[in-house]
């Protein structure tokens, strides 16, 4: 057992002696949380627009003012000819051009419809869609308000409640997602690379002939990564809570236990990958394609699963992060307990066992 302790110590030293790796190990979750928290947003804000006002009358000016003062748009330029529209959109200087037809105000008042054209750069279709919705909303509001704001604000006034997430903070999505991503990265990818490295450099053979048993080698490799992953999980939860005010409505202990389960799942995946790859580069590419991209894309982290084609929805079911993210969201945000997430927990447990057995089997074959 003494030699085992020495081996674990060696593995810790490998990681901790290298300040760069350590910095990144802890810098990565922080940077990701910050970026997701502050940078990644679908908010419509200060979208650059141009106006081609052929009317220059009361209605067109008032609508223009309303658009600019809404905060959603910022007026980049006024155009003087319809020919200018295409170049400014193509150069990407503005995202939308609003064109008022001549004599707009009169037409509007006289009962002939006044026409506004919204020309949007739809190379980003969702943003284009949002921009058009917001612009037309403002214009319709204006039309109604001309009737007299006291008497008739607008007929239907929907009361909106954003469930679970009042201010539409992205934090509710990205904290669980980032946790899954980071734990996958550290647990699965780093262990698979670390084991492949010993193989590539031939040091695995040295370890194999030493009195340390094969399973001890593997466990020794895992321990440092378990510790690191767990610390990272705690850091992410703490950041989410203290910096972004993300509540932990459910049981913290249950959350941490589920995280440990997910870490074991990722580790067994990592070992499995290392048994099939004989170089670090191969291990990295398998991890990248097999783990990272699915974690980001097929787990519901960024893109809602229900929008995907059916085939991908099925595939997403075998993606471990999907279940972990569901569990984290249920516990943290909805405050549910095991009663709610027992099914997901069982699925993760089953996956862990499956990968673990597969890894052990492959590992043995290789030894013989």
């Amino acid at each position: 057992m003494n030699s085992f302790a020495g081996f674990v110590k060696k593995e810790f030293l490998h990681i901790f002696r290298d300040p760069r790796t350590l910095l990144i190990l802890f810098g990565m979750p922080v940077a990701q949380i910050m970026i997701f928290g502050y940078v990644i947003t679908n908010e419509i804000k200060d979208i650059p627009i141009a106006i081609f006002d052929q009317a220059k009358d009361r209605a067109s000016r008032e609508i223009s003012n309303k658009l600019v003062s809404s905060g959603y748009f910022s007026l980049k330029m006024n155009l003087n000819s319809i020919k200018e529209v295409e170049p400014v959109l193509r150069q990407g200087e503005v995202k939308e051009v609003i064109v008022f037809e001549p004599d707009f105000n009169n037409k509007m008042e006289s009962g002939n419809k006044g026409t506004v054209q919204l020309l949007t750069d739809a190379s980003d279709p969702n943003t284009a869609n949002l921009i058009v919705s917001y612009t037309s909303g403002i214009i319709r509001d204006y039309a109604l308000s001309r009737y007299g704001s006291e008497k008739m604000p607008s007929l239907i006034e929907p009361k909106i409640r954003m469930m679970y997430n009042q201010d539409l903070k992205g934090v509710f999505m990205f904290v669980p997602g980032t946790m899954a991503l980071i734990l996958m990265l550290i647990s699965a990818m780093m262990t698979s690379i670390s084991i492949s490295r010993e193989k590539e450099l031939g040091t695995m053979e040295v370890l194999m002939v030493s009195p340390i048993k094969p399973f001890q080698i593997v466990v020794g490799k895992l321990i440092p990564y378990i510790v690191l992953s767990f610390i990272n999980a705690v850091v992410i939860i703490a950041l989410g809570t203290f910096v972004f005010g993300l509540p932990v409505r459910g049981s913290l202990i249950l959350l941490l236990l589920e995280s440990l389960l997910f870490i074991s799942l990722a580790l067994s995946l990592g070992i499995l990958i290392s048994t099939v790859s004989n170089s670090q580069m191969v291990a990295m590419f398998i991890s990248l394609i097999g783990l990272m991209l699915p974690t980001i894309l097929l787990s519901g982290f960024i893109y809602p699963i229900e929008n995907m084609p059916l085939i991908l929805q099925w595939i997403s079911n075998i993606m471990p992060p999907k279940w972990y993210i569901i569990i984290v969201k249920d516990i943290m945000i909805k405050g549910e307990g095991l009663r709610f997430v027992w099914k997901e927990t069982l699925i993760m447990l089953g996956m862990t066992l499956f990968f673990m057995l597969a890894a052990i089997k492959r590992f043995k074959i290789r030894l013989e």
Partner: protein
Amino acid sequence: MKTIFYLVQKEFIQLFRNRVMLPMMFVMPIFQMLVLLYAATLEMKDIKMAVIDLDHTQASRSLVNKFEASPFYNIIDYSASSGIAEEEMARDRVDVIITIPNEFGEKLNKAEPGDVQLLINAINGAKAGLIYAYSMNVISQYTAEFVSLKGVIPQQYSSGNIDIRYRFWFNEELNFKFFMLPGILVILVTVMGMALSALSLVKEKELGTIEQINVSPVRKYQFLAGKLIPFWLVALFELAFGLTIGRIFFDIPIRGSLLLLFAFSSVYLVAIMGIGLFFSTITQTQQQIMFLFFFFNIVFILMSGLFTPVESMPQWAQTLNILNPLAYFMKVIRMILLKGSELQDILAEIINLSMIAVVMLGLAVWRYRKTS
């Protein structure tokens, strides 16, 4: 010059002999295009809306019909069991619940505001934002029509009297794949170019072959050129391959000049590979450099505007993006492919990127030590 040829030739032999990397070069683009493109969709087609109609009047029904007519909504009627709707939302089976109160129709007829309630599942803030925008649009269209129909207010003032026409330029059908495909190409080219070249350098360090090169008269720039050129060609090939797949399977428009796109990509690749090679000079093991890659690439990719508009980012992030090569490429590849932008439209990006390329390559040559 001839020395570089021998270095390049060696890399190619190694690459083509690698049983995993070679297939990977072809599998990666196909996989990314066919799987990621379908996965990465924010197209809202199937918003699950639970309707709780307590009014049951002509007015309330026509509001529901209005939602039903929209291609975005999938209506489920929960009027009989309003409690269940929220439970279903907790289980993510419902995205939005609309409650129409029982005096809705009556109030509308009297031109009093009729309140409806919208409960939106907002755990995914971005999605909730879209649902909100779509729903408000439907409601305000409904209002406008209702108003002009009933003549509740003088017609000339109703919003029915402004004709709002919109045209979506460059992507008439709002095809989300046209938006994502160039973005995925950017990631493909970046991962292939940057990782392969830098990893192959660090691998030589790890295996010790680099010493044999360091005792030879090969110059620093020659050695780095030998690591850069092969993977630069590979990455350009990947771009061509990816574009072909995109063209065949997704009919992605190529409105601008392909020559311009490849010229820009060439500059971009030098910049990104310069960064990779610089990383490889400050690391000793492949594990270390992979870590560095993941860190920087995740930051670069998220900030580049892959899925959210750069304009919505805070000012400091936009300023930081001056240093982010991916942000330039992400913008320019969409401009050239979708908008048909020309050289003068992307001149500023080319200049900035060239500067990054020169600086990073310079740093890599400077940091690479034949003697330690």
